[in-house]
């Protein structure tokens, strides 16, 4: 059980390749989660009960089932009905939609925190619903949510190794395949941990800054 630095340098380029895919999957997944989450939150407030109920049920369903199962479903079952996505696209959609159901709650809380009077004022100023959303409600609702959203994105980053189950060659999968052909787990798995830790620590610092910048705006 000895640590071999030569081996570390030898496998570093392969791990970095995987790390790029991990970051790519996180960034794309975060974008999907941010956009779809907002959509879910707005549609869920729809005055049409059937619509808001359906969306509510769908998000409960997605939140109540494991991400791994959803990934398998998207990757192995959807091709049966003619939808064949590449591993990375399937992974980004899976992880993005899964986290969208969580970010939707953050958006909802943010939107509900905007005082009723703002809606009434928007109406009194003769703004349409669309204008009220874009110019009045969202600009006030979004900044306080940023730290909470960022928190979910960090959590999502740490879930990306699940994508290795659907053959995405991200960091974890690369490390596994290195371990598989060299019969050594200690260096590749330690490095995977280090990569994730470094990014998480940097993100935590960023998160603190975001909190100071946005969360206490109305104090």
């Amino acid at each position, binding site marked *: 059980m000895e640590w071999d630095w030569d081996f570390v340098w030898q496998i570093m380029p392969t791990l970095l390749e995987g790390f790029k895919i991990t970051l790519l999957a996180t960034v794309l997944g975060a974008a999907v989660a941010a956009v779809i989450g907002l959509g879910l939150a707005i549609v869920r407030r729809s005055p049409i009960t059937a619509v808001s109920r359906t969306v509510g049920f769908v998000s409960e369903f997605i939140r109540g089932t494991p991400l791994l199962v959803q990934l398998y479903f998207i990757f*192995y079952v959807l*091709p049966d009905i003619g939808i*064949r996505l590449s*591993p990375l696209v399937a992974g980004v959609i899976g992880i993005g939609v899964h986290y969208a159901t969580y970010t939707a709650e953050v958006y909802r809380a943010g939107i509900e925190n905007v005082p009723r009077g703002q809606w009434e004022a928007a109406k009194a100023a003769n703004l349409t619903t669309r204008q009220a959303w874009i110019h009045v409600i969202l600009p006030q609702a979004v900044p306080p949510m940023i730290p909470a959203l960022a928190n979910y994105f960090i959590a999502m980053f740490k879930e990306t190794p699940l994508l290795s*189950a659907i*053959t995405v*060659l991200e960091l974890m*999968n690369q490390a*596994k*395949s290195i*371990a*598989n*052909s060299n*019969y*050594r*787990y200690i260096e590749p798995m330690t490095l995977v941990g280090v990569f994730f830790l470094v990014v998480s620590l940097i993100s935590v610092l960023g998160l603190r800054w975001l909190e100071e910048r946005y969360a206490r705006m109305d104090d």
Partner: protein
Amino acid sequence: MKTRILASAVSISVLAAIAGGISASAADLKQLKEQGFARIAIANEPPYTAVGADGKVSGAAPDVARVIFERLGIKEVVASISEYGAMIPGLQAGRHDAITAGLFMKQERCNAVAYSEPILCDAEAFALRKGNPLKLTSYKDIANNTNAKIGAPGGGTEEKLALQAGVPRERVIVVPDGQSGIKMLQDGRIDVYSLPVLSIHDLLDKAKDPNLEVVAPVVGAPVYCDGAAFRKQDVALRDAFDGELKKLKESGEFAKLIEPYGFSAKAAMSTTRDKQCTAAQ
């Protein structure tokens, strides 16, 4: 106070038991006899290794191992399913006492573990779509066709053969198990799924898909043999295993064990560990 002393005594003895478990990881025959079972690593790749719906372990490799361990006085084998690539690290880490999974002898593996004499021999095969649209008959063909994607088990022989033939990493898809391999082939995610001949036949028999066909043996790929693999320091156990294996082979029982699965006893008996381990690959 008394209970606290008792509790700490219990926890110390638990710790000692755990530590004992760790130090017992280097297996010798006497220890295995005393504990009454040997832990073997298997895959789930019929006909090499198979786990039935009821959890019963069969397949040619565990069957041979079970008989030999029994004759050595070890009544039972306890099998755990593992990825091919994780077997040798698992063996080295003391999670298994032996690997009996159709893990083919290759030079680098021979350096890492102590193999028994050859047990199961097989050539490599491709499963692909009917009519072989990309005209693939060797790993080299896959390397030369920039559109062809090959699926293979992670850390398995086929993955290494494909990489050695020059197929770039991004076109060698690591497939978790046989069923997913066939599914990915049917869905067009991969163009070729490569496994040993008997495994491919077994999978396709089960899949019953008229749109798939087999290329076997793969042109230019050698015939490989597996053996039971032991830790380097457990050579004594390996030698005992070899002794019983030799007797099985001579008595003809060996053929009776493996031939129903489709393996050739003659192929295994006509070669040796030394030849397999040093063969140019």
